[in-house]
C-alpha cells in the first residue's frame, strides 16, 4: 500500500499542529463556533446528537493490520471501545472529546492515517473498488490513481471552499463495485484499442433529495490528463455551482441546469488552458505511484486441498460460507474473503476494539496483513490461500465474523440515523436490526438470493437507500418516525433510482412490509431470477398489493 514519505508525514504533522492551534483558539474564544465549524469539519469533526464525532478516512478502502490495531487502541483510549464503518470507506468514532481530538489525529498520523477533508464542502475521501488489485475482472488497479487524486485534492488551495461536498470514486474493473454512477465524479479505468489506459469520466451523480445517475462527461480521457481534467471540472464547479441554496449546490444540479453538453463545453475550455500545465502526469509519475502497490509475494497454489474439499462436502455451514463469502481471486490458489459486519443483534457496521485486533491478527496469519473496507460497511481479507479457508472460517466463526450473508437481504446498509446523527429525522439501525431479526433464517435468505436493502434516516441518503433494490427512508411525520419504501434501485452498472411504492409506514410495520415484498417476489419469480430482475419484469403492482393489502 502507499507508504508515506518524509513529505507526507511533514504535511500531515503541520496539519495537526494547525488544528491543535485552532482547537485552542476555539476553547479560548478567539474563534466562535461559526468560524470554527468549517475548520473542524475539514478535519473530520462533527458535533452530533450526543457528542462530537470523528470521521477518519480509509483512502480507497485500504487498511493495514497495524492501522486496524491503532484504530482499536484509539477506540479504547479516546472513545467507547468501538468504531463504526461508514458507507464511504471511513471509520467513525462516536464519542470523542474535542480536547482529545488533536491527540487522536497525532496517533493516527503515526500509522499514516488522517481525517483531512472527511467532511466539509471540499473534496472528500477518494473511494474505490474494495477488490482493487485482486479482482479477476480488473482492467487496471485503481489505487495508484486514487492516491494521485488524494494527494492533488488534499488541502487544494482553490477547492477547499466549494459550494458543497464533492465525492470522487474510481473503479478499475469490468464490473462497478464503487458506485461510480452516484458520485459527483465517477471514474472508470478503460483501455483503448491501442491498449492504452484512460478514464471514462462520469459527472453529476448523487443521492440526497435529488437522486441522479451520473452522466458521461468524457468517454476516454488519456492517463496523463487525469489531474488537469479534474482540476478543470472542479474549477467550473467552484465558479458556477450554486451557493445560494445548500440543497441545490451539488454539481449534479449545475450539470442538470446547464445541460451536460454546455457543462462539458465549459470544462473543455478550462481544460485546454490546463492540459499542458504542471498537472500533466508523466509516465515516471505514474510508475512511481504504481510501485507503491506491488503484487504481494503470492505462493504457488497448494495442491493438497483435501481438507477444504472434504469440509465443503461434509459441513453445510462451511459450504455455505465458502459459497457466499469467498470470491475468486485473480491469483490461482487464493480467495477473497468477505467479513460481514451485519451480525444479528449488533449495530450495522460497528466493530469493537477486541474484534479489530483479532481481525488484524487474522489478516497477518492468513494474508499479507491487509484489510479492505467496502462501501457496504463490510470488511475484506483480500489474499487468503484456498487451502487455509477451513481454519480461517473456524476463527472467524468464533469471532462472529463468518456470517454468510454477503449480498443478501440481511446485508443491510444503514446510516447511523437518529440514534447518533444530528441531521437524521428517524432512526435507522433499530429498523435494520428488526428486519435482520425477522430474516434470520439463512436458508430462506439464500433462497431469496441477491438483494440489496438500504436504510437512511433522512433525505441526505447516506445509506444510499435510493439505489437499493429495497430502499427505506425514515422521515418525521408530526413527531412520529415513519418509513417510505422504494423499490427497483440499483447502484451497479445498471444503476437506477428506486421508486416509492406508497405511503410511509410506522417502524413497527416495516419488517412485515419487507416480508410481504419478499413473498410477492417469490410468487412472481421465474427460475432463479434476482429480485431486481423480477421487479423490472413485473413492475411494482404485485409488491404494492402485498404491502398495502
Amino acid at each position, binding site marked *: 500500500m502507499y507508504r508515506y514519505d518524509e513529505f507526507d508525514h511533514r504535511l500531515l504533522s503541520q496539519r495537526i499542529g494547525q488544528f491543535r492551534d485552532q482547537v485552542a483558539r*476555539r*476553547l*479560548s*474564544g478567539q474563534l466562535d*463556533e461559526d468560524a470554527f465549524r468549517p475548520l473542524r469539519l475539514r478535519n473530520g469533526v462533527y*458535533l*452530533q*446528537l*450526543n*457528542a*462530537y464525532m470523528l470521521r477518519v478516512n480509509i483512502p480507497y478502502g485500504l487498511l493495514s493490520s497495524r492501522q486496524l490495531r491503532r484504530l482499536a487502541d484509539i477506540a479504547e483510549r479516546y472513545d*467507547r*471501545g*468501538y468504531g463504526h464503518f461508514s458507507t464511504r470507506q471511513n471509520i467513525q468514532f*462516536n*464519542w*470523542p*472529546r*474535542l*480536547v482529545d481530538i488533536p491527540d487522536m489525529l497525532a496517533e493516527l498520523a503515526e500509522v499514516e492515517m488522517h481525517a483531512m477533508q472527511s467532511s466539509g464542502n471540499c473534496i472528500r475521501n477518494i473511494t474505490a473498488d474494495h477488490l482493487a488489485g485482486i479482482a479477476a475482472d480488473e482492467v487496471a488497479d485503481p489505487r495508484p490513481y486514487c492516491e494521485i487524486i488524494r494527494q492533488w485534492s488534499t488541502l487544494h488551495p482553490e477547492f477547499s471552499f466549494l459550494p458543497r461536498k464533492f465525492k470522487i470514486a474510481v473503479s478499475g474493473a469490468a464490473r462497478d463495485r464503487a458506485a461510480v454512477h452516484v458520485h459527483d465524479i465517477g471514474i472508470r479505468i478503460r483501455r483503448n484499442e491501442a491498449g492504452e489506459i484512460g478514464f471514462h469520466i462520469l459527472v453529476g451523480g448523487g443521492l440526497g433529495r435529488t437522486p441522479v445517475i451520473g452522466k458521461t462527461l468524457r468517454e476516454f480521457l488519456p492517463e496523463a490528463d487525469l489531474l488537469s481534467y479534474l482540476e478543470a471540472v472542479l474549477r467550473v464547479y467552484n465558479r458556477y455551482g450554486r451557493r445560494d441554496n445548500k440543497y441545490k449546490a451539488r454539481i449534479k444540479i449545475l450539470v442538470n441546469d446547464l445541460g451536460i453538453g454546455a457543462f462539458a463545453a465549459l470544462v473543455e475550455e478550462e481544460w485546454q488552458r490546463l492540459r499542458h500545465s504542471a498537472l500533466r502526469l508523466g509516465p515516471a509519475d505514474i510508475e512511481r505511484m504504481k510501485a507503491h502497490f506491488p503484487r504481494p509475494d503470492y505462493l504457488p497454489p497448494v495442491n493438497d486441498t483435501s481438507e477444504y474439499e472434504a469440509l465443503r462436502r461434509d459441513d453445510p455451514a462451511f459450504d455455505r460460507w465458502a459459497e457466499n463469502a469467498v470470491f475468486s481471486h485473480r491469483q490461482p490458489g487464493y480467495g477473497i474473503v468477505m467479513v460481514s459486519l451485519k451480525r444479528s*443483534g*449488533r*449495530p450495522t457496521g*460497528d*466493530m*469493537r476494539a477486541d474484534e479489530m485486533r483479532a481481525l488484524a491478527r487474522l489478516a497477518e496469519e492468513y494474508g499479507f496483513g491487509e484489510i479492505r473496507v467496502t462501501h457496504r460497511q463490510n470488511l475484506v481479507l483480500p489474499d487468503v490461500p484456498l487451502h487455509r479457508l477451513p481454519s480461517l472460517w473456524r476463527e472467524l466463526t468464533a469471532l462472529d465474523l463468518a456470517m454468510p450473508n454477503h449480498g443478501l437481504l440481511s446485508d443491510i446498509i444503514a446510516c447511523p440515523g*437518529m*440514534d*447518533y446523527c444530528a441531521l437524521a429525522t428517524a*432512526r435507522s*439501525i*433499530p429498523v435494520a*436490526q428488526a428486519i435482520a431479526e425477522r430474516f434470520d433464517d439463512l436458508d430462506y435468505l439464500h433462497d431469496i438470493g441477491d438483494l440489496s436493502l438500504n436504510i437512511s434516516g433522512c433525505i441526505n441518503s447516506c445509506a444510499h437507500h435510493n439505489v437499493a433494490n429495497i430502499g427505506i427512508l425514515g422521515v418525521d411525520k408530526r*413527531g412520529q*418516525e415513519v418509513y417510505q419504501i422504494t423499490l427497483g434501485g440499483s447502484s451497479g452498472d445498471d444503476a437506477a433510482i428506486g421508486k416509492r411504492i406508497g405511503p410511509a409506514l410506522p417502524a413497527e410495520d416495516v419488517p412485515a412490509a419487507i416480508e410481504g415484498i419478499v413473498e410477492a417476489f417469490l410468487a412472481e419469480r421465474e427460475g432463479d431470477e434476482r429480485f431486481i430482475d423480477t421487479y423490472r419484469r413485473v413492475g411494482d403492482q404485485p409488491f404494492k398489493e402485498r404491502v398495502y393489502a
Partner: protein
Amino acid sequence: MTASVITASSLALGHVVYLRQEGECCRWLSDIQAATLFGDNDLEAAMVSAAAAVAANEIVDPYAIAVDVRGGRIEPLSLRERIRAHGPTVAGDSAPAPRSAA
C-alpha cells in the same frame, strides 16, 4: 405537566448538557433530572443565561425543549431529545451504556 428545559452541548467535551439555574449561578449538567424547569414567562431570561454561556465558551448551540414532568421525573417529549437524554436505542454490545439517569 409540560414545561421547558434548556439543553446544549458542552464545547470542550461535546456532551449533552442541561441548564440548572441556582440563583444567579448557572450550571450545565449531563443529567436532565437536574435541569431547571422553565415556563413561558421565564424561558426568555433563561435563554439569556444560555447565550452568556455560549459567549463564555462553555457550551454550543443552546435551545429549549419541551418536557413532560410526571412523578417528579423529567422526560423530553420528542424522541430525538429522549435519545439525547438517555443515549442511543440500538441493541447490541457495541452500543454504549445508557447515560446514567441518577
